[in-house]
């Protein structure tokens, strides 16, 4: 049986990206580079917004592991974006401890404010809103995570408004020379 899927060419890695990958690989024994796959995929996502199939091929080649083994990882862990998301991805925790302190209301307010369904992306591609599982910050509820790496705490409706307005403004300013 022949493989009918077209072979993907790997995404080209910049020197800066390769340098970050190398720093992760150096943490592990020489014959265990695969251990760095989680970190490399998250670096890729930080730099390009998601984990593209071409990016997976690049990571597989860099670490010397099968592409399918990379895909097993990217598809297993919840935080990898397997398709493009908005400029800002916001995950709101709705697990029980947060539910007891208005986590669900925070998610609903955010969706309403942005005019988007939970799980959806705004028409301008600025925001993606998703429900999240426990982020380990239950005393600070409502909590949300912006682009995987920044947690915001005690997010009242007012603070959510400040955050999304400010993020939108920052993106506009960045785009305007």
């Amino acid at each position: 049986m022949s493989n009918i899927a077209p072979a993907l060419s790997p995404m080209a890695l910049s020197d800066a990206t390769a340098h970050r990958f190398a720093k992760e690989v150096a943490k592990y024994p020489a014959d265990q580079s695969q251990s760095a796959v989680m970190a490399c995929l998250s670096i890729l996502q930080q730099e390009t917004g998601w984990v593209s199939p071409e990016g997976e091929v690049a990571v597989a080649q860099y670490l010397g592991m099968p592409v399918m083994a990379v895909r097993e990882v990217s598809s297993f862990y919840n935080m990898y974006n397997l398709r493009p998301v908005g400029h800002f991805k916001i995950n709101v925790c709705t697990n029980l401890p947060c539910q007891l302190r208005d986590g669900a209301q925070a998610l609903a307010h955010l969706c309403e404010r942005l005019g988007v369904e939970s799980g959806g992306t705004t028409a301008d591609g600025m925001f993606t809103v998703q429900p999240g599982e426990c982020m380990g910050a239950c005393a600070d509820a409502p909590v949300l995570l912006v682009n995987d790496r920044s947690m915001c705490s005690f997010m009242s409706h007012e603070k959510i408004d400040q955050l999304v307005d400010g993020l939108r403004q920052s993106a506009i300013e960045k785009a305007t020379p």
Partner: protein
Amino acid sequence: MNAQQLISQFQAQGLESSFHGRHIQPQILAGLNGGNWRLKDYESRGGYQALRKILGQDGSEGLTQDQVIAIVKESGLRGRGGAGFPTGLKWSFMPRQFPGHKYLVCNSDEGEPGTFKDRDILQFNPHIVIEGMAIAAYAMGIGVGYNYIHGEIFKTYERFEEALEEARAAGYLGEKIMGSSFSFQLHATHGFGAYICGEETALLESLEGKKGQPRFKPPFPASFGLYGKPTTINNTETFSAVPWIINNGGAAYLACGKPNNGGTKIFSISGDVERPGNYEIPLGTPFATLLELAGGMRSGRALKAVIPGGSSAPVLPASIMMDITMDYDAIAKAGSMLGSGAVIVMDERRCMVKSLQRLSYFYMHESCGQCTPCREGTGWLWRMVDRIENGQGRPSDMDLLDNVAESIMGRTICALGDAAAMPVRGMLKHFRAEFEHHITHKTCMVSAHV
């Protein structure tokens, strides 16, 4: 203002959660204020003295590996991640004379709903974890360690990396530490959204760059762990307890808890209290005292129920909670478990069906899919609780819930299956009437229904 500056305004500073001054005899959180996490601050609090002591770099003869393990055994320290296994005993399982590579792993994949203590330890006192790990590595003759940190707390992971750099530069990590013959390399690594990786063998798989599916035990990690080598895995808070134990002795640690439940424990309190947060108190402290530290019930409402040890622990009603002490043995005797020390407090307005609906969804979402009873059973449990909550429950669902939970318990590779089943059984045991009411009347017994 750029996006990062804006977002940083909304970041928690730990003031509310850990620096409220309402701990009892704190050891791990003592003297912290949110800003004093750096090496020089830790040293000024007496940090790295325990490592100096065992290595004989304080003018003494130092301690042997056996002596260190004996002190930890004497302390009664039990695993703070959830299982409560005696730490000294776990350390003694490692083949100390094994000639090849051995590994030490810190489990900071804190994802048990309700738990947020390891985050604050790593964020505000990272060097106590590093010192605890270095002492453990010395005791077991281990040369390399990893700290696997929950992916959702990325800033904390970056903070820990910074602390590692400080420790390396000061000679507390690396080759021939403080001029002794002991060498230990420590690295930080992170998850990316998988509750299951808090299970120790799933964590090892993840650390090897694979999907996090638990392994069969035996073989236990002490004989076949990371990369197939002998490995010891402890929780963040467990390692953090070690420097105090070495400095003050095992007997002193045991004395500040109660027999078989030595030391202090950080309880993470969430839900319907005035001041949710981390409270470090001696094991054996009454729950009523802990509740008082957390400012009592929110808005003065009545206590209804408590999940005393993270979402996997069976719920206990107020009547039982107000009579028990917070330690492994007392909570186990009451029919639940101390677990990770996450105390989820629910007041009189709370609907238990709705609470269980959310928890059941979580376990369905997080089942790794490896074992059929868990993969299929968690979905089945959620669908039943969901339809009961939505007024579609059938009378036969009561027995079926019990039956499905029973059929998952003890029939899976790891404890996630049990963790999904235990809350169901706890709810049915103590709040059966609420479920029956939902089925019969298709409405909630609790008027507010929140």
